[in-house]
């Protein structure tokens, strides 16, 4: 049993460790260690394509995580007021939403957006006022943000819901009893108490969006995010530079996840 467990961990982490190790290679080969250096990190950070993709990734991750946190929190608070079968249905739908594979979301979003664009674009063209050419809706940053927001929304709802459920109902009643309006209660009592959950939800959403390749691959159009860049450069052969980028992404994601966990834990202690 113990050997089995060890094997599992070896299988899981050896490739990751190798990538991290080889990213420090001094040579040109991605599969042979020829001395140690950080030159590939320098190369990656000086590569304008990498930096461009990184910028896109950060932007998409930030915007979609922000949207998901705000909308998700509102949805969770709204769902709190619903009881009975309707509530069970909503809960089930949210859990299902998290479990749907990325590829399904990617394809579904792609088809949905293409269909919508196909309907809307001719209308835009026909009714666009003035002489300037009408804008056309197409795949790109916007569609990517929309798709990521949609997927991570469910994550935020689940996390915030769990925290809300743990809150004592009497607290909001006590606030109302002490003359706070419903909005005042939300601002002064509910929001501060669920803040750790919202922050954790934000960090998880950010990490998800930042790491996502599958959905982005379908809906990003001509835009390049970091995972898409890595994917396309791998097709030209794996270099220590790709390893370095991968290691950095992994490091950043790990830090975010750990921070999110810490925030959630601390929040629960209170």
């Amino acid at each position: 049993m113990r050997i089995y467990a060890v094997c599992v961990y070896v299988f899981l982490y050896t490739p990751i460790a190798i990538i991290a190790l080889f990213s420090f290679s001094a040579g040109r080969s991605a599969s042979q260690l020829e001395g140690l250096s950080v030159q590939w990190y320098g190369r990656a950070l000086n590569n304008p394509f990498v930096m461009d993709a990184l910028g896109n990734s950060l932007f998409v991750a930030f915007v979609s995580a922000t949207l998901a946190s705000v909308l998700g929190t509102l949805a969770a608070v709204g769902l709190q007021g619903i009881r009975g079968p309707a509530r069970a249905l909503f809960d089930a739908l949210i859990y299902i939403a998290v479990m749907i594979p990325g590829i399904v979301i990617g394809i579904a979003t792609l088809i949905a957006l293409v269909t919508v664009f196909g309907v809307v674009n001719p209308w835009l063209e026909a009714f666009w006022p003035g002489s300037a050419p009408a804008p056309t809706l197409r795949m790109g940053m916007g569609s990517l943000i929309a798709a990521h927001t949609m997927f991570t929304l469910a994550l935020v709802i689940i996390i915030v819901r769990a925290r809300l459920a743990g809150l004592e109902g009497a607290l909001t009643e006590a606030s109302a009893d002490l003359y706070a309006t419903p909005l005042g209660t939300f601002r002064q009592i509910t929001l501060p108490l669920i803040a750790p959950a919202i922050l954790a939800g934000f960090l998880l959403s950010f990490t998800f969006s930042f790491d996502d390749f599958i959905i982005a691959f379908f809906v990003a159009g001509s835009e390049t995010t970091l995972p898409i860049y890595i994917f396309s450069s791998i097709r030209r052969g794996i270099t220590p530079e790709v390893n370095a980028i991968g290691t950095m992404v992994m490091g950043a994601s790990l830090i975010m996840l750990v921070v999110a966990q810490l925030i959630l834990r601390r929040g629960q202690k209170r």
Partner: protein
Amino acid sequence: MTKVAETFSVDGYPRESAKAVPGAVAELRGVSKSYGDVQAVRHFDLAIAPGEFLSFLGPSGCGKTTALRMLAGFEAPSAGTVLIDGKDVSGLAAYQRPVNMVFQSYALFPHLTVGQNIAYGLKQQRPKLPLAGINDKVQRVLETVRLADFKDRRIWEMSGGQQQRVALARAIVNEPKLLLLDEPLAALDRKLRKEMQIELQDLQRQLGITFVLVTHDQEEALSLSDRICVMRAGEIVQVGTPRELYDQPKSRYVADFVGTSNFFDGKIIAVNGGTGQISLSDGRSYRAFLSDAIPVGETACVSVRPEQIRMSDTQSSEALEVTIQNRIFLGEHTEYLVRHARLGNIAVMAPRQSDGRLDTLQKGDTAWVHWNPEAALILRND
């Protein structure tokens, strides 16, 4: 301390109602509340006098909390009106009502300090109160509940009894018209509960705020209240001072719930003004005061409090012959459980005697008990 009416301001406080009971600080008028099939509160008619300490007393599930929550504004009555200060508040939400509640779980805000918790209600007032005034009031109320040094503590750094006092302070600092307390002492251990009962009573006298307390602890209700409202299954059974309820219960239920008593079942054979004649299962008929109008022929019971029963080791004409079943020494009193052949078990509370003659009685010994007719009461059997 300033008058409540001067300091309190709530938006949209409603107009005078047509016919309010004069002087009542709050009133439940024909109030009912049902949850689906469950009738939690039925036809409540109750006026609460300003400055009084009123308790709702009744077994679990009888609707005490529901009645309180309708006063606070957390539940809307299914029928009837709630009046506060003579005004119909049925349309007002909890945050618009000049009442405050002390929750059984305290419901202190965990992310705020003790001082911030107490200032919370004052900070919600519009127009805004000056900060200095708020701090002043918080400091004074902290002194009142003897927590002056705890202002900047976090809630979870406080003991159960201290949290209880913070919850109390958070409510009374607003000088409400009505302070509602839902089993506020239930979570405390026995000793602390006794201390807090005394503090509560002192506080109420000192502040002159009307207290409405929910409890299922009859001792607590008896020792604290000016008036007790005894409830059963959502209905008011009897309202009165602790003494009235103890000495003149209107039904067997009240006599049983307030204090302890011996009940002997029988049938009314004659009624004469305030007294009645009842025949008991021992074949004899007894004369006693009638607690309520009970028609002849009705089954009823005679209630005699244990301390009203005299016991002796010598026979006398009026006395009933009993056998000693059990004896519990309680210091000033000794509690005996004795058995009569026909009437069954009888509890007797005998004061300490100088000659100590009763002390020699052992289990199985024969003794004689009797009570004055004035001490007995004929009660309805419900």
